[in-house]
């Protein structure tokens, strides 16, 4: 298996893009990544695009072909496929792109992620996102996605004594970082009171514990590591790309307070990259709901089970502290265009490892970890990246 590197990265601003369509967003991020890599569209040998539900959100399926066409590659006949793994579609596309280069089948691969979510009213978006859960056994019985997240949070609070105030620290940190990220959906800081005074979505999750509905796209250009320096002075190596799944419905699982898929993907990733949690300088964690980030930080070995919120209390999760967590603002503040999120997390780590992250630059970051999940931590995908 060949080593794989990222030679280009780009993304749109996340947010409400009333005047940009799905294809506009995808092409904007893709072109930025190509420019960053210093290559032309014709150099691309394959495209892997993460997208959860364009068919439902904007009535557009066949997203791979659409993107290839509007990237100007219709006449080149290259493969362009859409990859779907709910909210982990972006990281799943990167996993596919990684395999494609690692296997030796392709050299230059474009990995993208895109979602256009704000064309629909909130109740329809909620229903479409609920497709990531078990439609027959969870959703038809009345559960929405936040309701499932709320059950996880309730159980966690019961088992480990975490309070709402302690859980509120996670969105506060996210917004502090988002305020320094010009691509973030929300660029203002909030306080614990802002979180605790926000409307309840599904108790104990409040509006500020939940990531927003965003439009956005992100893209990466991959190449074999041995030729990466031909394209850029600062390629970033993908040291691990791992993917694991759990039971799709919460009620089938042994526990609501840990994610077997995250534990499994994490273990495999550390083994593949020959790293341990202590070697990681920066983490981008999937915080669709605060509780998911809390469980993931523990399941990835950065805190003991039941204690991730203590790291937040101790101030260790800020970008300039011991365990820089979601310096991009995370899903909560940077935004969560579901198909783009997993790619966008890696774009952030690439920027950080290249020392190009501006105000939110993590000092001396050499190794980063990105964690993206689909469903209620059903599928988990972990990438470890490092400076070459």
């Amino acid at each position, binding site marked *: 298996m060949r080593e794989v590197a990222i030679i280009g990265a780009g993304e749109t601003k996340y947010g409400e893009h009333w005047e940009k369509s799905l294809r506009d967003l995808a092409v904007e991020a893709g072109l930025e990544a190509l420019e960053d890599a210093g290559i032309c569209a014709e150099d691309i040998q394959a495209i892997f695009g993460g997208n959860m539900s364009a068919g439902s959100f904007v009535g557009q399926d066949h997203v791979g072909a659409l993107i290839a066409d509007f990237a100007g590659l219709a006449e080149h006949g290259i493969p362009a496929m859409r990859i779907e793994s709910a909210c982990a579609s972006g990281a799943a596309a990167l996993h596919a792109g990684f395999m494609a280069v690692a296997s030796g089948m392709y050299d230059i691969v474009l990995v993208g992620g895109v979602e256009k979510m704000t064309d629909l*009213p909130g109740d329809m978006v909620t229903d479409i996102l609920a497709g990531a859960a078990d439609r027959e056994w969870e959703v038809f019985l009345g559960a929405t996605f936040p309701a499932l997240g709320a059950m996880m949070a309730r159980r966690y609070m019961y088992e480990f004594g975490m309070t709402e105030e302690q859980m509120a620290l996670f969105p506060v940190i996210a917004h502090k970082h988002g305020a320094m990220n010009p691509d973030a959906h929300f660029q203002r800081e909030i306080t614990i009171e802002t979180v605790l005074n926000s409307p309840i979505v599904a108790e104990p999750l409040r509006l500020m514990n939940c990531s927003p509905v965003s439009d956005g796209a992100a893209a990466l250009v991959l190449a074999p590591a041995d030729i990466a320096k031909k394209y850029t002075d600062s390629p970033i190596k993908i040291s691990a790309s791992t993917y694991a799944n759990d039971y799709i419905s919460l009620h089938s699982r042994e526990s609501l307070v840990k994610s077997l898929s995250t534990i499994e993907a994490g273990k495999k990733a550390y083994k593949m990259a020959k790293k341990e949690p202590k070697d990681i300088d920066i983490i981008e964690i999937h915080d669709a709901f605060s509780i998911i980030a809390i469980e993931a930080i523990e399941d990835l070995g950065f805190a003991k089970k039941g204690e991730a919120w203590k790291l937040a209390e101790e101030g260790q999760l800020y970008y300039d502290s011991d365990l820089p967590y979601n310096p991009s603002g995370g899903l909560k503040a940077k935004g969560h265009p579901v198909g783009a999120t997993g790619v966008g997390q890696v774009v952030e780590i690439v920027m950080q490892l290249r020392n190009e992250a501006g105000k939110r630059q993590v000092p001396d970051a050499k190794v980063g970890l990105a964690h993206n999940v689909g469903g209620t931590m059903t599928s988990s995908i972990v990438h470890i990246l490092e400076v070459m």
Partner: protein
Amino acid sequence: MVGIVTYGSYIPIYRIKTAEIARIWGDDPQHPEKSLGIMSKSVPGYDEDAATIAVEALRNALKRKNIPSEKIGAIFVGSESHPYAVKPTASLIAEVMGAYKAHAADLEFACKAGTAAMQNVYAMVKAGMIEYGVAIGTDTSQGQPGDALDYSASAGGTAFIIGKEDVIAEINHTVSYVTDTPDFWRREGQRYPSHGGRFTGEPAYFKHIITAAKMLMDAVGTEAKDYDYAVFHQPNGKFPFRVGKRLGFTKEQIKQGLLAPYIGNTYSGATPTGLSAVLDVAKPGDRILAVSFGSGAGSDAFDILVTDEIENFNRDAAPKVWDQVNRAKYIDYAQYLKFRRMIVEVIP
């Protein structure tokens, strides 16, 4: 000089508190006040509709200054709740006034039909086609029970008579800005409108008001600080302050004409009634910016100068807007449903 010769408003006496609406739908009672800045909204009585509101508003205008009916050359009534789909409200107004020789027509442009009426009358007076004309914005707007509009859709209206003689407020300049933006709509036969949620904000309300206001101020060479008052369309209690801030206006300039926190969104009546509240207190030389917004979408902007004539004008002959706002009789949600004919009496 073309401008407002007299004006009058009418706000139904009934109010429902938004906390009462929240109670019915299981929402936090503080939520509508905190998120929309609306504490209560006006409700038309069981026997009131957009036409009766228009008549009351016009009567108040005529109490302040009577214009002989034979001098009325045009009547435009702007509303999105004309009582009839086919049969004009404007003809009813003509009949009420005895203005049988008037050019009469109904207008509809969501919440800006009232200011569209003002522009039509202004143009006909300016062109010399007519001596005086009536422009009315009136609505008993519809909000589907349980929808966000349930908190805001309310009732009220204002009538202006525009002419060249004894003008109390000169319409110095007016401009419009329009695009095809589907933020809010109601198809033929539908009882309640649909809306695009947050899409009604930035690409609709803010884009159109800001563009029209800037076009107007560029055309007349003014800045925000040149105005004593600013009236913006008021779908809730917060948007006018936010759009005002972005255009450089202070809360003080906006407060007098901002009625939405107490009476909700009177749609076609909203900007005209806000302007009416400003004319209730304006002094000679005061400059007023008024910018409406109608979904679909467009804005009409007006640069208005209050004249010395306002000193001779009998403003006290009819109830002032804030007195009508404060004259409130609170009802509960069941009475609200009855008044809005959402529950019906079955006669055996």
